[in-house]
């Protein structure tokens, strides 16, 4: 049973549409949700969480359809959208006191430990904190009610490298204990560090989803000098990137025979792939 199963999700806006978005999350895994700005990550997350109404598709959590089981599902999941951007002038103590009433499985001890380790003073208001600290507070709330699935929207943006690493360690610990993590990000190095699976969205369509290692192994990157890419290879290239001292090109592993290549990173694929194949 998938912790989250999205099937043929569609949503139309005047200038954008989500088109047959389908993927699923496996229990206990960390899945990265990656795509450029405007690719449809936020729209997908909002549809999953019931904030917008999809035009088509089915969404189910823990094997239960979302629409009929919204209450139970919401009490078993946690969502943090980056910084705490609500009630910025209320003390965190008040925000926590109000929020925790909604979660019967609230764990005060865990919350206190996270607040202490993040260095957060409950008597302050979010407006008095830096954006990185606001992200940490929003995470402290999300991580303190024993959620089985944690959905995070760009959790590491605004965090310094040490804090970012700290957070990724926390996510890996939670994953080892069976919590499923789904987080959207632009920062590909975060996913390189901790993601088991990825969901790659582009222009409202899922370009790929599945094991990160398997996804990366499908691609290679070759460098070419000032002379550029030979014509015979140009057609096979999945994408081309101009560099200071030549060009880089992305190839499918099967097309890269005989070339001097390195393994592709997520960054390479995201910035270069124009026709990355859709695959389950």
């Amino acid at each position, binding site marked *: 049973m998938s912790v989250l199963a999205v099937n043929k999700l569609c949503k139309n806006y005047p200038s954008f549409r989500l088109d047959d978005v389908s993927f699923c999350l496996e229990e206990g895994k960390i899945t990265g949700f990656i795509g450029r700005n405007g690719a449809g990550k936020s729209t997908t997350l*909002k549809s999953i*969480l*019931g*904030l*917008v*109404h999809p035009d088509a598709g089915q969404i189910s959590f823990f094997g239960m359809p979302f629409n009929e089981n*919204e*209450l*139970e599902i*919401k*009490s*078993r999941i946690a*969502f943090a959208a980056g910084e705490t*951007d*609500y*009630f*910025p*002038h*209320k003390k965190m103590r*008040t*925000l926590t*006191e*109000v*929020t925790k*009433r*909604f*979660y*019967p*499985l609230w*764990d005060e*001890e*865990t919350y206190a*430990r*996270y607040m202490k*380790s993040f260095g957060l003073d409950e008597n302050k208001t979010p407006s008095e904190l830096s954006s990185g600290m606001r992200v940490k507070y929003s995470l402290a709330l999300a*991580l303190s009610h*024993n959620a*089985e699935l944690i959905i995070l929207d760009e959790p590491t943006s605004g965090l310094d490298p040490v804090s970012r690493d*700290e957070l990724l*360690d*926390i996510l890996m*610990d*939670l994953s080892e*204990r069976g*919590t499923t993590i789904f987080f959207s990000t632009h920062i590909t190095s975060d996913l390189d560090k901790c993601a088991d699976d990825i969901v790659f969205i582009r222009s409202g369509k899922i370009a790929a989803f599945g094991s990160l290692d398997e996804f990366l192994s499908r691609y290679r990157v070759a460098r070419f000098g000032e002379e550029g890419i030979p014509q015979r290879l140009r057609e096979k290239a999945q994408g081309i990137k101009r560099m200071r001292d030549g060009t880089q090109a992305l190839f499918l592993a099967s097309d890269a025979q005989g070339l001097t290549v390195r393994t592709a990173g997520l960054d390479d694929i995201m910035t270069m792939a124009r026709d990355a194949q859709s695959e389950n």
Partner: protein
Amino acid sequence: MTFKAAAGGARPAKNGAGAMRALLIKEIKLSLHPTIPIFLLLSAMLIIPNYPYYVVFFYTGLAIFFTCLSGRENNDVFYTAMLPVRKIEVVRARIMFAVLAEAAQLLCAVPFAVLRARLPLPQNSVGMDANAAFFGLSLVMLGIFNFVFFTRYYKNILKVGYAFVWASTAMAVYIAAAETCDHVVPFMRDRLDTPDPAYLSEKLAVLAAGAAIFALLTLAAAAESERSFERLDL
């Protein structure tokens, strides 16, 4: 760094009453605009010798508008929608909060109405005296506010001002009509607009009818708003 999560496993049945209570606490601790308690002081306007006393409850509507407006700036609805509560409960809690604010304003107004009646001054020459019938007619006005404001607000929670323009216009029209009737309709002028306890049974009937109309309009507001909010994309 590792943290031990407490043992989970039990599927808690969060009953409706528990969620509504938590939502009301959230309304009071987070959403409430300072003008809600501050405008309670405006109940003292009932001792102004000559004044359209309905204006006191216009201010209650204004404070409710400020609460929704500051909610927009504070991403109140987004925060609430992410909690494990039904969308209809979000609407119900807000309307229940508004009813509590209106009830508080009414309760605060009663001692000032009593005080005004005891002052050695002629009756209110502008319009209705602050008596039992007045409170019934004020409840009708508040019911109209609840219906007009919330049904428009929950069609588009970003256009709070738009909802309030309609609601305040409705209240202004009501006040003008009610105070005019107080001068030209004999039943109102001669029986209802008298100091208590004169014609008390008629006035109590108006009070009861006013309360019933308030309840009907507010329940209709809730039903329509819940339908609109359920359909809304946030």
